[in-house]
């Protein structure tokens, strides 16, 4: 199956609903380690993305417009990284009418790399990067959409579980040091919810 602009729009709509539902949960998770705004910020970002005009856009253009909507909505770390990832994927998709499920692994990997470059964090720092890395790996060789979606959702959930027992090593959360052991990273938690929503 191929992914078109409509597929992307539907995924954004779903993600938007999911994030609204988990807004206070994500705020609470962030409040343990940061400033308690992850949920509110993502709700705002996805709200703006859901309003973005994707008419007459091929997937690459659609992703770029979504990224721009995100950058207009926020300047927070996670929001900006999110936009950075979308931009990277949009650049990869440029000029193509459709995207194949088989391309997704490489696309997520390119988002991960662009975000790593922009944010200066490394794999293993217990951030969204680790979730994306796990998703990229899980998507490898997947060609059916449901298989891919399930694998991504599972990988995001597994990454959250795996990293829970490790300390955060970047951003505000870094300053809590070993107190972050046993606590979910709010960004990873958000990715889990988002991946889960798209899988549904």
């Amino acid at each position, binding site marked *: 199956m191929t992914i078109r602009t409509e597929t992307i729009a539907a995924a954004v709509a779903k993600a938007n609903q999911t994030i609204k539902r988990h807004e206070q949960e994500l705020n609470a998770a962030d409040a343990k380690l940061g*400033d*308690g*705004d992850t949920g509110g910020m993502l709700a705002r970002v996805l709200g703006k993305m859901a309003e973005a005009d994707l008419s007459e856009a091929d997937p690459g253009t659609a992703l770029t417009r979504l990224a721009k909507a995100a950058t*207009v909505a926020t*300047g927070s770390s996670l929001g900006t990284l999110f936009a950075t990832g979308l931009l990277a994927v949009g650049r990869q998709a440029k000029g193509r009418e459709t995207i194949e499920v088989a391309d997704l692994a490489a696309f997520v990997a390119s988002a991960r790399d662009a975000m790593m470059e922009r944010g200066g964090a490394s794999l293993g720092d217990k951030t969204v990067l680790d979730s994306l890395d796990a998703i990229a790996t899980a998507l490898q060789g997947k060609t059916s959409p449901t298989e891919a979606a399930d694998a991504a959702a599972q990988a995001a959930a597994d990454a959250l579980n795996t990293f829970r027992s490790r300390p955060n090593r970047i951003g505000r959360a870094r*300053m809590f040091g070993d107190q972050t052991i046993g606590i979910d990273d709010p960004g990873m938690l958000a990715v889990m919810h988002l991946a889960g929503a798209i899988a549904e």
Partner: protein
Amino acid sequence: MKKLMNSPADFVDEMLEGLTAANPSLVRGGETGRVIRRADDSRNKGKVGVVSGGGSGHLPLFTGYVGKGLLDACSIGNVFEGPTVGSCIEAIQMADGGKGVLRLYGNYGGDRMNFDMAGEMLEDEIRTTTVLGTDDIASAGPEERKKRRGVAGIIYAYKTAGAFAETGADLDAVTAVAQKTVDRTRTIGVALSPCQVPGSDKPSFILAENEIEMGMGIHGEPGIWRDTLRSADAIADEMIDRLLNDRPEGAGNRASILVNSLGATPLEELFILYRRARARVQAEGIEVVQPLVGHYATSMEMAGASISLLFLDDEIGPLLASPCECPFWTVR
């Protein structure tokens, strides 16, 4: 926590509307509406531009320091969020008079990413440099000084860089002065009670009745210790001890002291703190010049205070003393 506000979604824009309505020297601009620039446009002054930016909720930071001898323009984000890349681009453009622009802002993830992106997107048109405020000694040890976050002390760099830019100095020279000022500034804060982000249903952290936290960050990031309230003198002593122990190389024997309210703490308490801080610094043989006591960098209604020391030398001393003019800080 009670706030005099309307919809949380309008908090920042309504605040900026009031800020500019009350202060005609500040103009709100850009498509984003999230940039404040000097009313007497900096672009035709033939000087290096100095821009800053950051999240809302810290007034007079950041936007309040736009003015002659300080910032030329400033981007501003939502409460405790970095400014958007669009607003950073606009701020840089509004500050550019053809001699390049210094990006001078606090060391926070979102701020950094957005100013970096803005700089990259403008790199064919405008030469920019970066200096990050890293004055908060509680946020990392001396060996990791570059990782420290920026707090109230950044206003000293606004002042010296802004003053130097007014003299016609070039971008590299202005950048060097800003960096030197950051390198010679040390801040530590103590929090007494939290603030709450508009729209959030919880305060940003919780301190028990009679509990305080030394070194807590301006968004509630963890500090050095949490314990029961002590006397103002004991608190000032510990803060000054920690600042002096972290003295920069070549600190010299002249310093400015900034005693800053985090928001709710009143001037009375700041002056009681200042009295002790000054005596302690003087007892070290350091002359205190150009002290600042008041609300310079806040976290809305958070209670507590920060103390900053800027160790002067013969270059930045006169820049600190030279004229500047913004709604919240005037030197003549």
